């Protein structure tokens, strides 16, 4: 009986501290922004109310927020898969961009008479391209101990270069302006859920990825191994887990999810590929994963939060004297405090190295 109560008490406080850990960066960001607003003579309460309204005030606003959150669901999961395993993959951005390009390519080159069936090969090709893109640094890390931070970061620039060349050259649309591919066939476009908002069916695919990630972490032997490798490599090796296979596996999974995200963005949001396809979704995804502590619910929370900031930010300056910079300050502060977690990871990496 005594044990039972102790158990419940312990579980409750753990839940509380976890929830607090998730909310902490956001709360600090609110406090810092409130200070900034006071300094420029605005009432923080009014502005935050306005922002909350712009983010969640109506069905239209909510769907705009979820639309902005959609790519972050993918990039958040793609990042978390690796971070959870102690693999510091920062190449989600590149895989996302190339996945989008691959899906758009199938979307406008496949015969139009295939109809909606085009979507399947488009997603498949995006997954293959994304997986291959991160497989390379995965193998380099697993077999040759090449630092994954450097290799994946650099590969992002290669991805920008490749996509930039293709979209300005061989794949350039003849009918449209600069730096965009032709539109994908209408049948290949993902359905809009709540027109006129741009929220599209890719949102559900993102939620599916999130659920699959949650299942993978809790209910698969691979997910179990990946977690142990992330917590202690020496231990994992000593109980017979192959570290190289785990590293390669999580990089492949990360690439597949990134590719899916790019495909969803290309077929659902833009209906084509364009230069500047991603305004840094891969990097915001890192903040989402860190903020969410690699937990599925945390990632959902983080993606919606950043989605709301992005969608509210563009309109909030229309209705107040507040410059868009305020939103950037909030985003930046959230990131900084989410990065406290990142500092812990790099510390862990350094210990692992010595």
């Amino acid at each position, binding site marked *: 009986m005594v*044990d039972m109560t*102790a*158990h419940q008490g*312990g*579980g409750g406080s753990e839940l509380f501290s976890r929830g607090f850990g998730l909310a902490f960066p956001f709360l600090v960001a609110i406090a810092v922004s409130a200070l900034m607003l006071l300094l420029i003579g605005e009432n923080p309460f009014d502005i935050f109310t306005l922002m909350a309204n712009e983010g969640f005030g109506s069905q239209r606003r909510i769907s705009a927020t979820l639309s902005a959150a959609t790519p972050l669901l993918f990039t958040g999961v793609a990042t978390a898969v690796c971070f959870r395993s102690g693999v510091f993959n920062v190449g989600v951005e590149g895989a996302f961009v190339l996945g989008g390009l691959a899906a758009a390519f199938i979307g406008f080159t496949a015969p139009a008479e295939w109809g909606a069936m085009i979507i399947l090969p488009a997603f498949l090709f995006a997954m293959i391209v994304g997986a291959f893109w991160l497989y390379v640094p995965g193998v380099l890390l697993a077999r040759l101990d090449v630092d994954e931070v450097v290799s994946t970061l650099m590969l992002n620039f290669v991805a920008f270069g490749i996509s930039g060349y293709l979209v300005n050259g061989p794949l350039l649309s003849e009918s449209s302006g600069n730096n965009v591919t032709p539109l994908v066939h209408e049948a290949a476009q993902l359905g809009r859920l709540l027109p006129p908002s741009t929220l599209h069916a890719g949102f559900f695919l993102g939620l599916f990825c999130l659920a699959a990630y949650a299942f993978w972490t*809790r*209910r*698969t*032997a*691979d997910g*179990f*191994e990946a*977690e*142990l490798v992330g*917590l*202690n490599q*020496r*231990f*994992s*090796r*000593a*109980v*017979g*887990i*192959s570290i190289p296979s785990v590293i390669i596996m999580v990089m492949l999974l990360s690439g597949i999810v990134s590719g899916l995200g790019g495909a969803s963005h290309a077929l659902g949001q833009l209906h084509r590929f364009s230069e500047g396809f991603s305004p840094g979704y891969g990097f915001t995804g890192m903040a989402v994963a860190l903020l969410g502590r690699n937990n599925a619910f945390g990632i959902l929370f983080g993606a919606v939060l950043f989605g709301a900031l992005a969608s509210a930010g563009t309109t909030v300056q229309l209705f107040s004297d507040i410059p868009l910079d305020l939103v950037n300050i909030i985003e930046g502060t959230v990131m900084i405090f989410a990065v406290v977690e990142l500092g812990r990871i790099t510390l862990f990496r350094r210990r692992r190295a010595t």
Partner: protein
Amino acid sequence: MQRSAIAATTRTETPDKPKVRLGAVDIHKYYGSVQANSGISLRVAPGEIHAVVGENGAGKSTLMRILQGLEQPDSGAIIVDDVEVRLNHPQQALALGIGMVHQEFMLAPDLSLLENFVLGIEPANGPLGRIDWTTARGAGDALAGQTGISIDWSRRAGTAPVHVQQFVEIIRLLHRGARVLILDEPTDVLAPPQVEDLFNLLRGLRDNGTTILFISHKLREVMALADLVTVIRRGRVTFNSAVADTDAEIIAEHIIGEREEPALAVIDDRAPIDGTAETVLAVKDLSTPSVEKSHSLDNIGFEINSGEIVGMAGVTGNGQAELVECLVGLRRIEKGSLVHRGQDITLASNAARRARGLAFVSPDRSHEGLATTASVEANVVAGSHRSPPIARGPFLNRSAMRRVAAERLDRLGVTYANLSDPAKSLSGGNQQRLVFAREIAGDPSLLVVSQPTRGVDLNGIAAIHRILRTFRDNGGSVFLVSEELDELLDLADRILVIAGGRIVGQRDANDADMAELGRLMVLQDSADG
């Protein structure tokens, strides 16, 4: 340096020469229920080289950490220059002239040797506080010159050879006014000629008035270098003498100690081995080169039969860790072979060896034996997570996982609050029982166990010994590496002695004599000529 000299004059009645430069009086220190120091007293006179020797875990390092202000004793006093002081921080110790050279050097690897030398006390001039590198260089050269050594100061510390790093570390402390140097196993990282250089340097420093406290477990070095020797065993000083008045054998006996009665009544329930014993593991001519800091192994050969515990005795750092890693598949074997139940496993991976029935209790419980931040549940099922009933194809059956975990933990009586608690929330003894619960769950044929009772309290030790005996009595084989000769004599059927990466002796446990084993362990030079 001058300042502290003046301070010493005002403090002491005999300004020129205090009787005790650094001393400890009746130091007690507990870590939880483990008593690391129980009443240690030590007197180091100015200008002597004083060696502190003892087995690993005897309490030497704890004492040094206390003398350096890294830890505070539970009771007892520290004396500096005949005056009792409190050391709450290494900075305070250094201000009183006590500096420590750690086993892991404290140099910033990306800075040059000169930058490291002056780091924190850079000579600066001008209103902008520009660092005066010429003065810094001069100070460094002057100190190095006194010891007859020249240094390439522009070299990055990280790329400098180990003995140069060590040298810079030493003169860096001198530059900060250290008059007492504490060196923790300083020769472990050095090659033999460099050891001689280090000793010459230390002798020179002593002759210039520096006091040196030198921790070692290598008797040869103590005999060669020290003026006085203090032996610590199980947290107590067991011997103290001028080196000139004693010899290595006497010191060795004090390090090993008399065989004490086991603290807990243990019935000798060693089962008679019947004639049908099968060879479970045959090690033939196993050799590996020394890589980085690892020890080489040289033509190791032995066999382990079913139903027996083969013990390995030796001073830590003589190749035991490397041998264990070779056996369990965590280190590549360069030469020789391993045969497990008739099948060659020399090239088999750790996972393949585990699948064949080999289990491993790591000496490094908190980094390799357990993932301390993972749950108790994950720790006790790891390795079995791919086989039923926990695995259903690629998926996990979480309720089966909980059930299996609880069964395994209950079988060995591990006390825990929740399966989801991190493993580090358990006590040392319970953590080790958890490791055993995982390792013997699959009914292995061979259990490779290294330092199973390190940091475990008496009850935990008794429980672990019971586990090992039961396992052996049920026909299992155990390879047991331990620093504790008592433990080996209690448990093992045969004892191998390793020194310098070679097996230097083998004794039947029934007629093994502790003093003789101890001599084999520490007097490696005379052991086999």
